[in-house]
């Protein structure tokens, strides 16, 4: 096990079991490993992936296993090598590229959104661009304004990209298989705080899951209901889902039954699934660690109300970053994150407001 990798809460008890409790980071890597073993078109490219395994451990051990011809270290030239990945995909390869922090899309946004995402369309279907961009999102560890963003909407807004963000190990592995086998450009975002990388401290228990040894896929475009409830729907993305689960515990103690929905796939977005949940509860809180305005929260709320003007028993609530840059200092940072307390009080607002 790499120094970069935290031990999962529980480890396999028997060599026979086909599943073990894994972290997101390990689970997704297992899928990459499997696909690289079974499909020679698949290769990995990024900064510090070959020897180091990527800053967040997404490629740990893969360099040793597959060699530096298939796990390829690149200079700090993201426009260059993400463009290259797109070109390699156009020529029949299936690159998996690692951009450690999603904040870095600033320097390669054109290669992502104007080139790779649009080539299939602009070529009228002649050139497919099957590739996966893995990137780490999120704040909460005092890494400040340029290494803590989620940028969910900045990516999901642009046509031609699929954008997913699993929140537990089972989904991470299954969605990574799906991503690599997809003929399109998939952006695969994992919140650093939930990934299980050793730099990020104690594991988030609810991010661990029993993961089969075998390959399997988890389809995109379907929400996951983590916890059923009847009074209020809390729909979240990324780490906010785990905060929502804690919030649901707190709410339960107050006699409020919260349904916790993991959006997990931003494009395609499971509008039906979300609406179904809200139709049941009549109340909605969206918890998203991306910026408040012009983001996921607005989209989710609009998607619900545009289907049924009478669905809400109370105004929906948003718990996001309040349109400021992520501050460094812990009390500042914690105050703007979509943490349990804020989610709980937003949920309570929907109840009080009946």
């Amino acid at each position, binding site marked *: 096990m790499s120094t970069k990798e935290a031990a999962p809460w529980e480890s396999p008890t028997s060599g026979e079991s086909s599943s073990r409790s894994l972290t997101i980071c390990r689970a997704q890597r297992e899928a990459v490993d499997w696909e690289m073993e079974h499909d020679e078109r698949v*290769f990995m490219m990024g900064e510090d992936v070959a020897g180091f395994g990527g800053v967040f451990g997404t490629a740990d051990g893969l360099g040793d296993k597959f060699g530096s*011809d*298939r796990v390829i270290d*690149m*200079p700090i*030239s*993201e*426009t*260059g*090598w*993400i*463009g*290259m*990945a*797109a*070109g*390699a*995909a*156009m*020529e*029949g*390869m299936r*690159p998996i590229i690692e951009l450690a922090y999603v904040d870095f899309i600033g320097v390669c946004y*054109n*290669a992502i959104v*104007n*080139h790779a995402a649009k*080539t*299939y*369309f*602009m*070529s*009228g*279907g*002649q*050139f*497919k661009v*099957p590739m996966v961009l893995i990137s780490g999102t999120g704040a909460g560890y005092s890494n400040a304004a340029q290494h803590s963003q989620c940028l969910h909407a900045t990516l999901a807004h642009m*046509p*031609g990209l*699929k954008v997913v963000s699993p929140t537990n190990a089972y989904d991470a592995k299954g969605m990574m298989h799906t991503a690599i086998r997809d*003929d*399109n450009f998939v952006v695969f975002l994992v919140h650093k705080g939930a990934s299980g990388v050793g730099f990020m401290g104690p594991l988030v228990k609810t991010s661990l899951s029993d993961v089969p040894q075998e390959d399997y896929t988890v389809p995109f475009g379907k929400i996951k209901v983590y916890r059923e409830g009847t009074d209020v729907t809390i729909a979240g993305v990324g780490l906010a889902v785990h905060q929502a689960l804690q919030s649901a515990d707190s709410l339960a103690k107050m006699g409020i039954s919260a349904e916790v929905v993991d959006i997990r796939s931003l494009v395609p977005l499971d509008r039906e699934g979300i609406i179904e949940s809200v139709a049941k509860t009549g109340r909605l809180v969206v918890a998203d660690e991306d910026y408040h305005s012009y983001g996921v929260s607005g989209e989710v709320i609009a998607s619900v109300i545009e289907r049924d003007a009478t669905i809400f028993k109370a105004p929906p609530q948003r718990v996001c970053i309040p349109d400021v840059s992520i501050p460094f200092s812990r009390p500042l940072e914690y105050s703007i994150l979509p943490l349990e307390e804020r989610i709980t009080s937003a949920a309570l607002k929907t109840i009080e407001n009946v």
Partner: protein
Amino acid sequence: MSLPTSIRRSMFETMVRSRFWDDRLTTQYWIDKTPVFAFGAGPLPGELHTSHGQEPVGAGVCAALSDEDMITTGHRPHHIAVARGVDLREMSAELFGKKAGLSGGRGGHMHLYDKRVNFSSSGIIAEGLGPAAGMAFARKMQKKSGVALSFLGDGAVNQGAFHEVMNIVGLHKLPFICVIEDNKWAVTTHKSMSTACERNSDRAENYGMTGEFVEGNDPELIYLATQRALERARSGEGGTILEIETVRLSGHFMGDPAGYITGEKSDYQVDPVPVYRARLIDDGILTEQEASDIERVIGAEVDEAITFALDADYPDANDALNCTFA
């Protein structure tokens, strides 16, 4: 100069084809765009960047290529596409926004793709460099042959992507040729105002690449320089920055009268097509009659492609929605 006659002839034909096509497009372009000019009006809408003057680059480079070689280029792709053998009817249809177009009308003038001949173009400056390098990289991984070429202008070199990709090409000794078409202008900005060095090919050495500069907008020198670059690429010696002096005879786009190209800065504005024609006649490669025959035949071919495009159907509105994901 000892180029085979067939190649010289064929390069002339390519230049004529490209020029005629651009001329026909120009005619079509102005339909319904007077008296009130609008990019969006007429049968041939949008911005249009013709290649008048740059034909030798397309002709010379592409004549040296093999089928498996790959091309990416930018907003001024006509001469390269024609030289590469992109289907002229389908390309015309694409420009007229027809269903029979290369991309069914979705791509348009700046986004010409023809997978059959490994060709693609796109409209953001220098954007094709990374993809071309990646194509070369893919072939290396696949142990298949094929050199990737990316064409860009003297202005485009100043985009950061150039630096990033050249360095990676050098590091990985990729089979890659960066073709810089130095027509001295980027829209209205003269190269002397945009570029701190005289020759971009001089930058090659520090990228672990070979630099070559080709003077005179001469298809034959261009052909020979390309051959050398291909040879190096194929034998594992890595990439070349091939900087080619050429000329933009038209405005930057249709509707640009290019009034800024005056005085000294216009002296080199010589039309290469009649020059090459005269040279082939002088050299006894073509008779005047043969040259006219070529022009007549190619004229008819180009007319036919334009007619095909004009007659073709527009796509169904729904086609806008059916090509976002594979």
